[in-house]
């Protein structure tokens, strides 16, 4: 088990978002957390990425409590891309990706050939080598998102957490980003946990789905096990037909209407 939440309780001030949650992430899998708005899925991802400290329970990284490991050591193993990050104006793609090497640098040793090759590789993997010198703010939404993922890749971690990496992207760019995720998983053997809103794409690109509602895990398993008409009714208040995706054979959700 690479990453594990045990009896985790997450709260913003007095407001409890997640309570008594258990979740385990196996090595080498792609896991997607789904659920309606406000169900606590992004909060859970933040806690898994030690951006948020649980008020109860614990998060374990490779069996050790994540808050007991120095944050820089965590950053060498676990990369996390938060929701819609912002960069200073004028920052180039290459500079952004280079900042992914931050955990490997110290103030007296700034840039090594390791850093150079990681950045080159990350740019190539995301197809951004030709855009390396362009400022981030001149890129399209899809390219920009790829640049951020590229930064997380340059960090060189085999565990990646992505919070809604496809938000604000059109369908073809969503597919592009998810193809990249699949590539990272299949070719580079990385473990990936993400939050997605599109159930059909989640079903197609994921080994394991985790459905959440009101801070609890309602179901977890393969897309076939999780994406059922009953679950959609229970978790999303949605009446829907689930048929086989004519392309991939994975479950395809066809909404009928919101349950009143």
């Amino acid at each position, binding site marked *: 088990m690479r990453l594990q939440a045990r009896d985790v309780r997450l709260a913003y001030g007095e407001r409890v978002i997640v309570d008594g949650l258990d979740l385990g992430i196996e090595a080498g899998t792609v896991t997607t957390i789904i659920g309606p708005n406000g169900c606590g899925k992004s909060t859970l991802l933040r806690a898994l990425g030690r951006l948020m400290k649980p008020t109860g329970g614990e998060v374990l990284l490779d069996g050790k409590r994540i808050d007991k490991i120095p944050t820089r050591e965590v950053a060498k193993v676990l990369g996390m*891309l938060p929701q819609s990050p912002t960069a200073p104006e004028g920052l180039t793609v*290459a500079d952004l990706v280079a900042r992914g090497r931050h955990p490997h640098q110290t*103030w007296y040793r700034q840039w090594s050939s390791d850093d150079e090759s990681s950045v080159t590789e990350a740019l190539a993997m995301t197809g951004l080598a030709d855009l390396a010198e362009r400022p981030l703010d001149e890129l399209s939404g899809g390219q920009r998102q790829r640049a951020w993922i590229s930064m997380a890749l340059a960090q060189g971690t085999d565990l990646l957490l992505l919070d809604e990496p496809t938000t604000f992207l059109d369908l073809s760019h969503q597919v592009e980003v998810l193809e990249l995720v699949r590539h990272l998983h299949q070719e580079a053997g990385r473990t990936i946990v993400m939050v997605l809103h599109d159930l059909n794409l989640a079903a197609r690109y994921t080994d394991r789905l985790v459905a959440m509602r009101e801070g609890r895990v309602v179901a977890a398993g393969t897309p076939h096990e999780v994406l059922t008409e009953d679950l959609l009714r229970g978790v999303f208040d949605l009446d829907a037909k689930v048929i086989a995706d004519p392309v991939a054979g994975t479950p395809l959700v066809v909404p009928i209407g919101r349950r009143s």
Partner: protein
Amino acid sequence: MPKLAYFTRVSNSEEEQVRRRTAVFGALLVIVLITVVMSITIGSKSVPLTDAWHALTSPTGTENDIVIRSLRVPRTVLGVLAGIALGVAGALMQGHTRNPLADPGLLGVTQGAAFAMVAGIIFLGMTSLYAYIWFGMAGALIASVGVFALGMVGGRGGPTPVTLALAGTAVSAFLYALTSALVLIDEQAMDVFRFWQSGSIAARGEEVVWQVLPFIVAGLLLALINAPGLNALSLGEDVARSLGQNIALTRGIGIAAVTLLSGASVAACGSLSFIGLIVPHLVRPLSGTDHRWLLPYSGLVGAALLLFADVIGRVVAPPGELEVGIVLALMGAPFFVALVRRRKPVRL
């Protein structure tokens, strides 16, 4: 065309970038040297270059020797130190708050120094400049620590840019009110305060330079240590934390650096507006967003700008002089408007 590819590769490399940025650093250093020469030779009494050289290398007690060694040199050195300090402090402040309009005064150092000086004069009967400056520095440090502590209240895990700005404004307004009330009841304090408020590097003498030097050196060291962390932080707190940066520590070091730098300069020279605000905007087109270069460039440009404004102040209203703080404000305001109009201000 393999050759073409080869060239693109080279022009994009880290090495090339370092070379270009080092060259810019050298050019800025030359500009600072030019303003240093101007500051030593130009004034109500102009000194030819050869005489200036004579005074610096083998003084024989001529009138020019005395002017240069006892007045112009300390004034110039103080100008360089304060300019570097304010330029770097401004860049740090804008980086930490991700606010292009932030300046070092946001931490309450200016009003803290003013209040401590006025209180020292009235309640302890201080009369020497040397004592004023110690008080000013102490006041700046205490005000800044107070703002930092107040900014932590309510924030989770350290102050946020917003709580800092609110706390800084509140503390500054409070101290300003106290200072205004105090100077009304004491004429001597009023004189010192008025002079201090206009901001000047003249007639401070060599002791003042030695007095503030250790604080500025310490502040610059902290600023350099802070640069890589600030680069991570400029991508947002979440990304910085994911990259393994300790946010509270980075903020703490940055604010300590700003406090030391702006506290020392504000105590020695009074309130010098606009340098901390404008310099980072001038520098960003040259340095990009990398604080490892933005901070040193800002220091150099700050020094050059401060000395230049001081020289202008010496020649603009003969036989008198205009305080550098006033020149800076007069130059700074239209300059800043032009900067905003020329292109949209760089968002941080």
